[in-house]
């Protein structure tokens, strides 16, 4: 059974995003490491302030999702946070968020890990949890404060941000999950061993056999099983480690620029890892109209993809303005230089 479709309909009851205000232009990184020579993969990336981490980012996104859902947080039966930058190695991010939004004590809570796919894992599980009657609502969050080794190609894009989704019954939802599809293999494209600060990656190996293969399989299979194609969707949003990969992938899947540009935030936000495709989806929902169809597909190294076919309902009316839009956060922009970045991201050992 390749298509995942629960016997009871579920959807998104509320969604929210968060992007830190600091921006590090890629040309500033190039100034320090390559004397400004060569191309850069994006324009700029979002950098967290010194008092921000995956918990604070996920929490603000969750509060925005609650503001749109307008539900009692005590009815949330699962708080799940997907990230590769949880603040503690041992001690859940999810219990802090659950406590801060008032969902404790009778709720499931767990931290999920699968590189950049950790966030959409919580959505897949949340659909099943709600459809199976285990909880009225499930809160799924993808958030990261990704770090690249200084001077490494990843440093240009490794950014911070996140998104949160409250999953509930179809009749309460502002957008429905029509079906989803997961595709995973053991692929060593990117990894980080315990206690290591920065990740390692397989260089060019991260492209074809990893990103392109898994998204093509998960998104392609979903569309073929649903008997539809790119032209049946109004919007598409893919995992976005840079600008080039998602544009090329979307074109391979048959999409046009008008379908991907709304959800493609990486040129001005960077790669928010577990937050990336989920954050792009919030930017689409912010402007979506009833009846719009959206294809969303994540990618996480290691490797795998989750794809979702989503249809916006009449309930979206009035919900979009109940919390800050993703564009509001993108517009809140304070440019920093490399020295400030080094300080905020603690790249200098003081003792």
């Amino acid at each position, binding site marked *: 059974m390749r298509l995942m479709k629960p016997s009871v309909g579920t959807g998104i009851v509320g969604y929210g995003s968060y992007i830190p205000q600091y921006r590090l232009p890629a040309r500033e990184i190039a100034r320090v490491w390559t004397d400004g020579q060569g191309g850069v993969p994006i324009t700029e990336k979002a950098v967290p302030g010194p008092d921000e981490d995956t*918990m604070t980012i996920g929490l603000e996104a969750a509060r925005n999702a609650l503001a749109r859902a307008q539900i009692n947080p005590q009815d949330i039966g699962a708080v799940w946070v997907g990230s590769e930058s949880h603040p503690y190695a041992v001690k859940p991010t999810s219990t802090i968020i659950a406590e801060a939004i*008032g969902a404790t004590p009778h709720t499931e809570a767990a931290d999920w890990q699968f590189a950049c796919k950790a966030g959409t894992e919580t959505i897949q599980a949340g659909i099943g949890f709600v459809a199976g009657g285990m909880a009225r609502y499930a809160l799924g969050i993808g958030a990261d404060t990704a770090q690249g080794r200084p001077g490494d190609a990843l440093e240009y894009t490794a950014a911070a941000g996140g998104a949160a989704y409250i999953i509930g019954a179809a009749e309460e939802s502002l957008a429905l999950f029509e079906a989803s599809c997961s595709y995973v293999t053991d692929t060593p494209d990117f990894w980080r061993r315990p206690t290591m600060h920065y990740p390692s990656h397989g260089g060019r190996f991260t492209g074809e056999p990893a990103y392109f293969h898994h998204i093509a399989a998960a998104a392609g299979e979903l569309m073929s099983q649903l008997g539809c194609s790119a032209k049946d969707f109004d919007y598409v949003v893919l995992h976005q480690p840079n600008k080039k990969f998602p544009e090329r992938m979307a074109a391979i899947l048959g999409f046009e620029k008008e379908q991907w540009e709304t959800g493609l935030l990486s040129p001005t936000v960077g790669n928010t890892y577990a937050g990336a495709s989920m954050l792009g989806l919030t930017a689409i929902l912010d402007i979506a109209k009833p009846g719009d169809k959206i294809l969303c597909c994540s990618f996480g190294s290691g490797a795998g993809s989750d794809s979702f076919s989503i249809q916006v309902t009449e309930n979206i009316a009035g919900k979009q303005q109940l919390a800050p839009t993703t564009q509001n*956060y993108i517009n809140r922009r304070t440019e920093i230089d490399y020295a400030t970045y080094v300080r905020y991201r603690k790249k200098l050992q003081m003792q």
Partner: protein
Amino acid sequence: MTIEIARHWRLKSQRYQLVGEVCPKCSNKMFPPRDVCPECADDSAQPDFKFSGRGEVYSHTTVHNPPDGYQEMAPYTVALVKLEEGPLITAQLTDVANDAVKIGLPVEMVTRKLSTQGDEGLIVYGYKFRPQLATA
């Protein structure tokens, strides 16, 4: 250490959700919670009250020599914030340049890292205030 952990744990609903109290007699809103209403001296049980988190800067000062655990944020601005429900609350400001803080600046509550107890200790989270987000 254990006393310190217990103190942080007891304060979590105040720190995470800005939960104070409302006086059942004169409906004065209080933060932090206290035993006796400072307005009417009523000492009956006071129900929880969750503040909106919006307010404005009443006064402010910049800290250049912070205590242990706060060094990585310095220099930072601490303000007396007048909440829209009335009470004054002392808190650190965030996401704002120290020289951009003015009396009357509209601010809103966010939850951020307050301090970290070294590399091995707890991360303490709680309320700070930032300039109100432009949503237009």
